[in-house]
């Protein structure tokens, strides 16, 4: 038997936990799958991706799982002696330590002067430990406290679709709506335009991508939506 015939699924097929994806030893199980004897089995609800011999399942739903270098949008929920705790929508709050902010913070300073409770930050994940402790930083270009604008939440696994190939999708939305948009890998999207109509149109476009992320011809659908929206 060759590789092809071992596969029991078509690429990009939707699979469920427990579904057998391939038989035999030719394929390698990756994310979202596991091997049991001769079989490679899905352990997630999602889309199958076959890359050479490697099989993985990309989940389309679920909470955010942080990875190093992710740009995320978070909210300050707690302030300690040595830094801030930031809710980034994952299973644990992220730590922002004093040395990870742009300004030099003196010992004993009032930390709320830098980042206060409920303030929203665009930050970068620098480290995720084995026990899922998450460290974030504010020291890199584009990282900052957000003032104004709105935040919408989408399923984190849909973020790549909202961004599009080489950022094509998000560029198109920005162009048509004249909005500033930052898409956090954690599924939070910050939108700021010069008027609420633009912001609502950008929101609609992003929500449409979320609900039809697996549909062919999505770019055209979104372009039509944006054009119709800007006509009014």
């Amino acid at each position, binding site marked *: 038997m060759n590789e092809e015939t071992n596969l029991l699924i078509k690429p990009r097929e939707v699979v*469920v936990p427990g579904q057998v994806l391939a038989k035999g030893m030719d394929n390698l199980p990756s994310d979202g799958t596991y091997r049991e004897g001769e079989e490679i089995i899905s352990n997630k609800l999602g889309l199958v991706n076959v890359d050479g011999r490697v099989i993985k399942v990309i989940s389309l*739903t679920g909470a955010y799982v942080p990875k190093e270098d992710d740009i995320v949008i978070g909210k300050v929920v707690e302030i300690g002696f040595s830094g801030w705790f930031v809710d980034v929508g994952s299973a644990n709050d992220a730590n922002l330590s004093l040395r990870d902010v742009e300004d030099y913070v003196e010992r004993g300073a009032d930390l709320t002067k830098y980042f206060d409770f409920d303030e929203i930050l665009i930050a970068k994940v620098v480290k995720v430990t084995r026990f899922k402790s998450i460290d974030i930083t504010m020291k890199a270009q584009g990282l900052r406290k957000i003032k104004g604008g709105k935040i919408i939440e989408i399923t984190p696994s849909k973020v790549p679709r909202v961004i599009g190939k080489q950022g094509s999708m998000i560029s198109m939305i920005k162009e048509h709506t004249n909005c500033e948009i930052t898409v956090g890998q954690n599924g939070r999207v910050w939108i700021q335009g010069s008027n609420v109509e633009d912001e609502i149109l950008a929101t609609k476009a992003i929500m449409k991508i979320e609900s039809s992320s697996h549909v062919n011809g999505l770019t055209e659908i979104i372009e039509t939506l944006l054009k119709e929206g800007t006509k009014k």
Partner: protein
Amino acid sequence: MIDKRPDGRKFEEMRKIEGKVGIVKRADGSAMFKIGDTVAIAAVHGPRVLHPRFLQDPQKGVLRCNYDMATFSVSDRKKPGPSRRSTEISLVTEKSLLPVLDLSMYPSSVIDVFIEITQANAGTRCAGIVAASMALAHAGIPMKDLVSAISVGKVGGRVVVDLDKEEEDLESFGGPTDIPIAYTPKNGEFTLLQLDGNITKEEFIEALKLGRESCKQIQKEQERALKEVYKEKGK
């Protein structure tokens, strides 16, 4: 022995089933499961931060199930709030789902599963487990298999699948025997097993075998409902 079930079903026949996924927007995963006139809804919140801290497990996530019935889901109004019964069912629900879950990715966090029975006609804990299993998959939690569940047992001297309320109350031929089971088809294990009544070993094994077949059918419906979420919408 009875020669017919009260509602005319075959002895090994379960009631009509239907699953639906994605029914509670604000949850991370959610599902409804209907078997006959019993309706269970389940919603998953998490993985999220677990408070208080002493409940956390630094090695893996904690699963917390919460089963309850709406006061109006039964004929004689149920008192609101948890009871000893609902607490026990929450516990056995957790234990029936845990064997398939991989929570190693979520140290110190909790995955909350809330199950509400909105309409009851027997078999509510099993319906809850079926809905919860779909909701967990919908929430993107890694799981080796879907868990399906059904009650089997003995009614009027016959081994049957999926007792309804009328059958649960049938006192003839030694009274009813109710055996709620949960089953994970992939590895062939029963992860919920309770028994009320009296039954011979042979009948019991027969009941489990019949239940296993029904669970496989239920799993097909779970699969269908889960995949339905990704069908094209609104086009």
